């Protein structure tokens, strides 16, 4: 495991994301909501909401929408989805920590559509790891590892993890050599 960003860098990256989102927010008069995907996207959404002026903030648990439920051995733990507002006609910023295959974003989109009909959904991720298996593209990326020229020499089975307080002891981004990927 090696660290590729420390707490200070993470804070800067979140600032970058916030700035990019802010430019789009100033262009409309629609209500805006920010929704984080458990279990790091929700923390990231909170950080972003602290920097921007969001009318609504929510948390999405996508467990029940995973496309591999009948393949994996056990049922993953279900947590709560907390979106206590109607997302109809809203501009919704969907937030996740790392974008890789795109499967959790697909699940999150389906889950959002079951909750209502937003006017537009934007995708904001802290890290784009590359390795897409679905045609999904982020609107905002702070740290782009998808390009070969990132200079980090990531192997295909390397896992990129974002750590955020208070769930993790300190903020940071790390690369783990391999190991079973628990979340999609």
């Amino acid at each position, binding site marked *: 495991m090696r660290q590729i960003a420390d707490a200070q860098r993470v804070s800067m990256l979140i600032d970058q994301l916030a700035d990019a989102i802010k430019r789009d927010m100033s262009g409309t008069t629609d209500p805006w909501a920010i929704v984080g995907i458990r279990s790091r996207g929700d923390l990231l959404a909170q950080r972003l909401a602290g920097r921007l002026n969001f009318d609504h903030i929510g948390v999405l648990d996508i467990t*029940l929408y995973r496309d591999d439920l*009948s393949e994996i051995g*056990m*049922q993953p733990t279900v947590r*709560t989805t*907390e979106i206590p507002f109607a997302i109809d006609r809203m501009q919704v910023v969907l937030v996740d920590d790392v974008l890789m295959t795109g499967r959790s974003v697909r699940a999150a989109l389906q889950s959002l559509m079951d909750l209502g009909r937003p006017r537009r959904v934007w995708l904001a991720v802290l890290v784009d790891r590359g390795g897409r298996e679905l045609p999904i593209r982020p609107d905002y990326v702070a740290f782009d590892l998808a390009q070969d020229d990132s200079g980090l020499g990531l192997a295909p089975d390397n896992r990129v993890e974002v750590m955020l307080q208070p769930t993790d002891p300190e903020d940071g981004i790390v690369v*783990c050599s391999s190991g079973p990927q628990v979340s999609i």
Partner: protein
Amino acid sequence: MSKTPEPYCWPHKHLLGLQDLSAEDIRFVLQTAVGFLEVSTRSVKKVPALRGKVVANLFMEDSTRTRSSFTLAASRLSADVIDLSGKGSSISKGETLRDTGRNIEAMGIDAIVCRHPLSGAAVQLSRAVNCSVVNAGDGQHEHPTQGLLDIFTIARQLGRTDFDLTDITVAIVGDITHSRVARSNLYGLLKLGATVVLVGPPTLLPRAFADLGCELSYSLDDVLDRVDVLNMLRIQFERLTSQAFPSVREYATSFGLTTKRLARAKPDVVVMHPGPINRGIELDSQVADGPNSVILSQVSHGLAVRMAVLYLVSGAKHQADLL
């Protein structure tokens, strides 16, 4: 990075009773149910978790709310449901439960929800089939999902979000002998640390229950002021064969929860009933519809709990196959 402990994994392919579950199992299924509560509040009340699975309701005894609750729970998980009831089917032509189960399974069923008048029927069925079996009430034995939803309701009502019921005293009042609801509640509540007092007339409250670790009382009035929860059981006229009490009116006088009795209980005592209520016998109408009553919450929580159960047992099946 320090090695994280092995995550908990639901190990049960069947849900036959709360006696078989550990405290950790019970907390996990209830915690899972919290995640399912929200599904019923949406405009699209459905999640795709059990898409393509089939759940069979095999009910050999009358039931309205449990069966419809299981049907709705399965549909909200996107499973298909087939309904088989004892009356008007081959089951009433003398087919054994084992044969019925195996025939249903041959249609490609993933889980059977079974209610049966005989104690132990669900266990028998689980041995005969390869699919999951969920006990929806077997004779006087257990009604695990009712026990789970009662515990869920108690914990939420009393703010115990971690489902630890230490220092909470629950009275279960009525016909304990014939009640599978009482047994499932008792097993579950004791495992989560609650104190349980069983209350009823001596004819319906066998002394052997004390061996399970609960208190017994033959007088509701004696325990009223020290309990946090009053779970009032239904007098099951269909199961009372001998004269268990002199008259219904006498039972109501001694064990019915009247407004007068409620006034002597703790002001925020939680009043529960598994339904259907015999109004004026176990519960006065004013009490059943009053501010202490959580009877309708029990029903809505039942849906979330049953969704959690169906979700978990269908996952455990895969795990069992892989081992």
